[in-house]
């Protein structure tokens, strides 16, 4: 006999979506609302130089307006952005930010940046702090737009620090949880609280270092030590060094400036590639010993030294440059690529193949894990090395129990698996991107050879910027086909988010229960 259940006991309706999309969109809207304020800076610059202000005012109004509208329309009680929503939020946030940032290029970019794909490429290259550019003729750009390019990288860099230290560890992306305890702070805080907390603390380091670099470079100009280094150039380059961005105001990148300027930039590139949480402890909290105690920092400095020496030897040996020039050329290029900044003090696209191979290898190293740099990063290489060593040890003695340690603390096995998975995905994304670009180039006939495609994909995925051949440091990505450009945009985006959030969005169980 069938028994009628009381209504309250019936099972609920099926809710298929596992992600709170409105909450995520709401968060991105709120971020866009504030992003609109960023456009005030280039507006002031345009006023100063007597250039057109409306592209920035309009872009700012659109950004804030859209953000506000989206936020309003998705507002609702009880919504919260948790870990699950975090993957979607960061992915959408960077796509949206690049779209808003590209508006001034659309309005005023002219032939160089006016095309939507070019504008979006330049914007994505900016907010991901990559530094790949489609600009070919720098002198034709209004100064306000030129500074806007640099400024987008600086704003992107701030986002990257928050992403690297507050968000990705929480999302357990690519073994990032090893840095979970980097900053003392509320462990169980909501994502938005963590973002605020991290931004407030590490923002000090970021802003201060940028200011110091800008002053140091500007002083060269004021003292007459560098005829080309105007205050404008100094600020622009400070804006693109600290985020390891690499946009320059000159077609010749840093080669347009004096030796002293190059050395100053080199030092700040090194700093930008260090862990910001570590620099906060070392500089703000005044515990300089933290640097020596940090395993990743030690390896990072060692790698920078070894790479500099190796490149110097090759530059000298091949007769590209001699003496002090060789040291500077070697060290500058090594640090620039290692930290994924992407400046150049020499047109390395013209260097012998062996040197290019060294630079290419450096593209896969990357800077420290808590920095604005991209690529695989030193901490992951360090831990992968330890995992391999243990694997060899256990091949002989399977019973050996050997926890992997990072800065003395044991790292759990899930983190190690995540690191290995990250590296596999990273290489996979690079191979895939290379394939698409190579095929597109072959079909359109305009663009890159296969070897250059390999470099371009690695450079975009590692958020470095320049590659080899026609897309070298003095070249431009303008000549590539649309499919190649879109692919590179995708690689920059995925690389910046450390791939996994993007790939997670492609899995069925992320969306559906």
């Amino acid at each position: 006999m069938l028994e009628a259940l009381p209504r309250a006991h019936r099972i609920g309706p099926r809710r298929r979506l596992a992600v709170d999309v409105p909450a995520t969109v709401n968060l991105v809207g709120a971020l866009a609302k504030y992003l609109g304020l960023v456009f005030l800076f280039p507006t002031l610059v345009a006023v100063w130089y007597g250039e057109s202000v409306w592209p920035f005012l309009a872009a700012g109004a659109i950004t804030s307006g859209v953000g506000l509208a989206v936020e309003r329309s998705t507002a609702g009680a009880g919504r919260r952005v948790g870990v699950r929503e975090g993957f979607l939020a960061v992915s959408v946030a960077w796509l949206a930010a690049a779209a808003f940032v590209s508006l001034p290029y659309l309005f005023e970019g002219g032939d160089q940046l006016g095309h939507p794909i070019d504008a979006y490429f330049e914007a994505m290259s900016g907010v991901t702090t990559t530094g790949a550019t489609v600009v070919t003729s720098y002198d034709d750009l209004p100064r306000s737009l030129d500074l806007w390019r640099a400024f987008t990288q600086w704003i992107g860099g701030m986002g990257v620090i928050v992403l690297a230290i507050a968000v990705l560890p929480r999302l357990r992306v690519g073994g990032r949880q090893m840095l979970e305890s980097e900053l003392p702070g509320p462990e169980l805080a909501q994502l938005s609280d963590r973002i605020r907390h991290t931004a407030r603390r590490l923002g000090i380091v970021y802003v201060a270092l940028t200011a110091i670099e800008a002053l140091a470079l500007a002083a060269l100009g004021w003292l007459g030590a560098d005829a080309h280094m105007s205050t404008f150039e100094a600020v622009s380059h400070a804006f693109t060094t600290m985020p390891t961005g690499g946009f320059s105001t000159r077609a010749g990148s840093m080669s347009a400036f004096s030796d002293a300027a190059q050395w100053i930039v080199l030092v700040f590139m090194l700093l930008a590639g260090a862990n910001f949480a570590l620099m906060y402890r070392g500089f703000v909290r005044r515990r300089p010993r933290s640097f020596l105690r940090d395993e990743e920092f030690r390896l990072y400095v060692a790698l920078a030294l070894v790479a500099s020496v190796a490149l110097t030897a090759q530059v000298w040996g091949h007769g590209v440059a001699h003496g002090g020039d060789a040291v500077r050329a070697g060290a500058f290029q090594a640090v620039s690529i290692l930290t994924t900044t992407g400046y150049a003090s020499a047109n390395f696209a013209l260097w012998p193949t062996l040197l290019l191979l060294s630079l290419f290898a450096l593209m896969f190293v990357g800077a420290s894990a808590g920095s604005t740099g991209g690529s695989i990063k030193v901490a992951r290489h360090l831990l992968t090395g330890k995992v391999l060593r243990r694997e060899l040890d256990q091949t002989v003695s399977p019973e050996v129990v050997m926890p992997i340690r990072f800065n003395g603390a044991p790292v759990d096995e899930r983190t190690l698996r995540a690191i290995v998975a990250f590296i596999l995905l990273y290489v996979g994304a690079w191979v895939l991107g290379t394939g698409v670009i190579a095929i597109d180039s072959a079909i359109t006939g305009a663009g890159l050879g296969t070897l250059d495609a390999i470099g371009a994909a690695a450079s975009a995925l590692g958020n470095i910027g320049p590659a080899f051949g026609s897309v070298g440091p003095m070249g431009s990505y303008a000549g590539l086909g649309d499919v190649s450009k879109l692919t590179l945009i995708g690689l920059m985006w995925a690389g910046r988010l450390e791939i996994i959030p993007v790939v997670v969005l492609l899995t069925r169980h992320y969306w559906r229960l």
Partner: protein
Amino acid sequence: MRVFLIGAGQVGSTILEALHSDHEITVLDTEMSRLQAVADRYDVTTHEGDGTSRRDLARAGVGSADLVLACTSRDEVNLVAGMFARREAPSATTVIRTSNVEYVELWRGGQLDVDFVVCSELETAHAISRIIGVPAARKTDVFADGQVQIVEFAVEEGASTEVTRLPLRDAKVPTDSKVAAIIGRSGTTLPGGDDVISPGDRIVVIGSPQAALEWSSLLAPNGGAVRDVVIFGAGRVGSQIVRVLLEQGIGLRMIEISREQARRAAEAFPKARVYRATGFEPDFLERERIGQAQAGIFAMRDDAKNQYGATLAKVHGIPFTIAIAHEAVSEAAFDQARIDVSVNPRRVTAEEIVRFALDPRTKQVAMLEGNRYEVLDVTTRDSSRYVGTAFRDMPVHGALIGAIVRNGAAVFPHGDDVLQVGDRVIVFTEAANVPWVVEAL
């Protein structure tokens, strides 16, 4: 002295055995049968009651005790009993037994209101480190948390001529150490500058652990340092042994069957090599060359496994085996099985607690050479005759100050140092001189 003992288990009865003849003892326990057993054997007063009940403690007369020993097998009971005893008998010395090193650390930090905390695991570890910490040693004892060691060495034929075969005043004696006695064919001497250490003698050295190791390599150059000791079992006892031995710079390997405990041990001791294995598979023992170890320590929870493991290890070539005997009966069995040393944590703990039953100011801490010589641990009073005297000006009367412990740190005195009030002085002396030394200090 009136001693109040809480807990009549294995540790309790070992303490009774040592103290019952000289002291007036009251025993409190919850189990009537255990009380009956000790009452049958010793002349003691027994009370049935709970150590965690202040009323029971008061009724049993804890208030009139001079020394309160809380040594049940449960830490919590001992802690609570110690606290209550402190309230009931403020002038008594309270000693509690624990199996958790954390309580020892708390006590050292001044956060536990008892006079002494004795930890079975720690005492066991110290006992084992005394056995293998100094390779050429025949006997050792440690004072002041291991900062001062008294070691008896056999002087072998190959001993370094830096210290042997020449007058002591010319010998290059390791810093922070003193030769307290030379035991030769002609008898024992408290040496002066003219005496000579010869092969075949035995000597007693007082010094820092570092100095003891230096002596060891001087006297037995072929013995070398202890580089490879294998420990079976990474439980509480095993981990504590590892901690103490690692501090001495001894190279260690650990074998533990439980995945969780092996992982924890590997995380806690980066310097030790940890295997997850039973330690009984011939394949494993052979492949990892366990037999090449200099010594094997068996600290598993099961005495039977310790015995089998030790025997198997001997078969595989480990020359020296130490096994933990949790049960008193196992010691005899281990002996039969030719295990070199067996260590019973409860006995070690009881022995340590017994030390406190003796005059707390003057502790007779070790006896050497059939009671002819004693090592005393004396705290100086402001009325001591030699306070303010430099060591070079003190008379030599068959007694030697080996070390002093000042503010918790060991100092190895040189001629110009001056004795201060409150110093703990570790003195090596002839038994006949004990009253004189105690009185003088």
